[in-house]
């Protein structure tokens, strides 16, 4: 677009018009940004209020800022322990997804055979299967093979995350020239060395995307851990949140607990996002372009 303005006539009214356009653009964008952030604002302000205040004035600023509700919520959901559990489950699941799907996608792109295409179609088609269609047989099967546990949960996430990740890697690998790998084989590189030293470094940005996209849903997932590990002593953040909510009463919602608890449970993932967002954006765009 910049070049576009260079080549067009450069008179003053043109620049004035451009300037006004820019200002309008910024105003519009800022309004949309406010709209985007408003719901998060609700979450934030209501984390410092008691139940009565939340019901009476859900939008208002808290009467006085005290960390009491946040501290209480953190205690009730065993924040640190749950954070550790969730982190371990999430990172192991994501590690599994990354390794398995990158290997598969890499091989599928490099082998153009019918089998490879078929396997790829299988993965893509699986993206369309609703969770409800597999839920019960899945849990039953994992129980039969003695894997209805946190470990089994990781395998399940591995399976559910596979489709999208293979899809993303597949699109990305297609854009990576074969030449480097060929050179490496000539140098006598083994397949493992090739994967670790040649392929993976080239897939860095899409790997970040795969990591982030999968972490996001695994971190926030509720139904699967609920059915698999339920009310055991090791619970994920979302499960802790759920059980804290039901022990507070059969009906109604203890918002003075829910809001701060939700707030602290999403803070870690938001921090990670803010640090990695450049990679995320790049990863998603690369994944989209090349698939």
């Amino acid at each position, binding site marked *: 677009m910049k070049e576009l303005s260079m080549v067009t006539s450069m008179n003053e009214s043109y620049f004035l018009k451009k300037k006004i356009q820019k200002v309008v653009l910024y105003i519009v964008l800022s309004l949309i940004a406010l709209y985007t952030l408003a719901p998060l604002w609700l979450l934030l302000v209501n984390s410092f209020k008691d139940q009565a205040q939340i019901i009476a004035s859900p939008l208002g600023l808290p009467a006085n800022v005290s960390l009491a509700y946040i501290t209480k919520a953190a205690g009730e959901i065993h924040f640190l322990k749950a954070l550790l559990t969730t982190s371990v489950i999430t990172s192991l699941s994501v590690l599994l997804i990354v390794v398995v799907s990158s290997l598969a996608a890499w091989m599928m792109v490099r082998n153009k055979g019918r089998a490879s295409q078929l396997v790829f179609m299988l993965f893509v088609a699986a993206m369309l299967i609703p969770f409800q269609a597999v839920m019960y047989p899945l849990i039953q099967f994992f129980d039969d093979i003695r894997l209805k*546990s*946190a470990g089994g949960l990781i395998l399940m996430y591995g399976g559910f995350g596979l489709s999208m990740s293979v899809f993303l890697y597949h699109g990305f690998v297609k854009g990576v020239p074969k030449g480097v790998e060929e050179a490496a084989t000539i140098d006598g590189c083994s397949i493992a060395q090739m994967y670790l030293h040649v392929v993976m470094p080239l897939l860095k940005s899409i790997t970040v995307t795969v990591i982030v996209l999968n972490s996001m849903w695994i971190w926030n997932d509720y139904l699967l851990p609920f059915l698999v590990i339920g009310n055991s002593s090791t619970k994920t953040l979302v499960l802790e949140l759920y059980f804290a909510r039901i022990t507070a009463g059969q009906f109604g919602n203890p918002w003075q607990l829910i809001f701060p608890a939700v707030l602290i449970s999403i803070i870690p993932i938001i921090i990670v996002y803010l640090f990695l967002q450049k990679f995320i954006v790049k990863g998603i765009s690369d994944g989209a372009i090349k698939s």
Partner: protein
Amino acid sequence: MKKSLVVLLVVLLALSASLFAQGTSEASKGYDIYVYNSKGENATQFAAMCAAYEAETGVKVKNFSIGSGQDHMETLRSEMNSRNKPTVFSIQGIKELAEWSQGGFALDLNTVTTGDFGKMVSAIPQSLRLTNDGKTSYGVPYNVEGYGYIVDRGILAELFGPSNVDAVTADIKSATYPEWEALVKALDAWITSAKATTVTLSGKTYTLASSKGSLTSNLNGVFAVMGAEKWTYGDHFINVALNAVFTNELDANKADAAKVQSAKGALLAYAKALDLKTSYLAGLKGKAVRGQDFVSSANFGYDQVVQIFADNKAIFFKQGNWAFGNIAGVNAEQAQRLEFLPVKMPFQNQDIKRNDGMTVAMLNSSIPVFVPNFYAVNAMASKAEQQKAFDFLYWMNNSKTGKKFITEDFAFIPYNADPKTTTVPNSLGNSIIGYIASGHIIGAPYNGSPASWSGDTVGLRVMENYLTKKTWTNDDYSAIADYAIQKWIEMK
């Protein structure tokens, strides 16, 4: 860089090994019996009770607690599908029983005739049994619960004078529907402008205070109603009317089309009583009316309406003793002064279709008291494990420690409580015990209606079409009753 990567991988592998190990250790049963409890609110106390049982008897109890509601059945099914099935599990009424008895999971406790547990089971009153044919008995009741119009005695003291509270409460309980209707209208007028008007209750005349007091000055309506919670009027309110027709859950469950059609009169009374109740509404910010705001969960959801009542903005609030904790959470002082009043409906004598002596006066002076949940024993468990389950259930309901947990820690009203000697640390619970003592209790036949008929069908219809409508006509009453009957027959 490489080294740290290796270290990281080793750590992750060790962690995952521990996660998998957890699963396998669970497989080699680390317990004697497994109790599945679907009253998530008492999870902590329930676990403490199991620990106490282990300390006393050496029997290791694995316990799992979960909240009632949508997910409880899903989880229980998933547990029933697993290798380690619960030995003791929960069944919430006759609707859930259908599946567990057909599937062969629930043990008919009437087959147990020996020992302490056999005696305990045969002593469960017929009206509190979980049965699908009147002969079987599939569960030990958790407790009993009840509901009605909750009223703050502090408000009654300001309205009728502190010395009249007991008398006025007793007279509202036994008042007729026309007297109740007149009272509601008088109270509504009084809230608008306080004047010393008179009302007649059970034939006696009372004078309302000439000015507002510290509590009554907050009032803006007569009733606090959860317009957005369809189970409150779809399940519980309609249940009062069903009591005019059906003796109990089983009676409702077995009813044929003709019997359901005979409920027309009772259901008309339901619609009229609901019209009265929703015509004098209190809101968060002033008097409220039926309309779109009234069914919005941001204004008239559970929490908002508890808030309305606990802020003394309404006089009557139809809810159960389970709401005690919610009310106490907002207004602990008020929670100590609560009492139940019966839900009244304009029944005619011919609306009563029962032949066990039920009368209009009795219906209008009683509150529903029922068993929300039962402990069932898994028929698939080994005989030895079943015996351990019997011992556990007996201990829980008869030993000193077990009974202490039930009344003090769970704040339950025991199903086998002696109403003369039992008290619970909860004003609403004690009010129910009072009704049990005087015999003014009715049942929960709505539990015997077809699955999802009450709240999800009739309640939904009322919410979508009527609670949003300013005035109701006789045609509307009729339409509500007809729809309820038609759907019952259709869904059966």
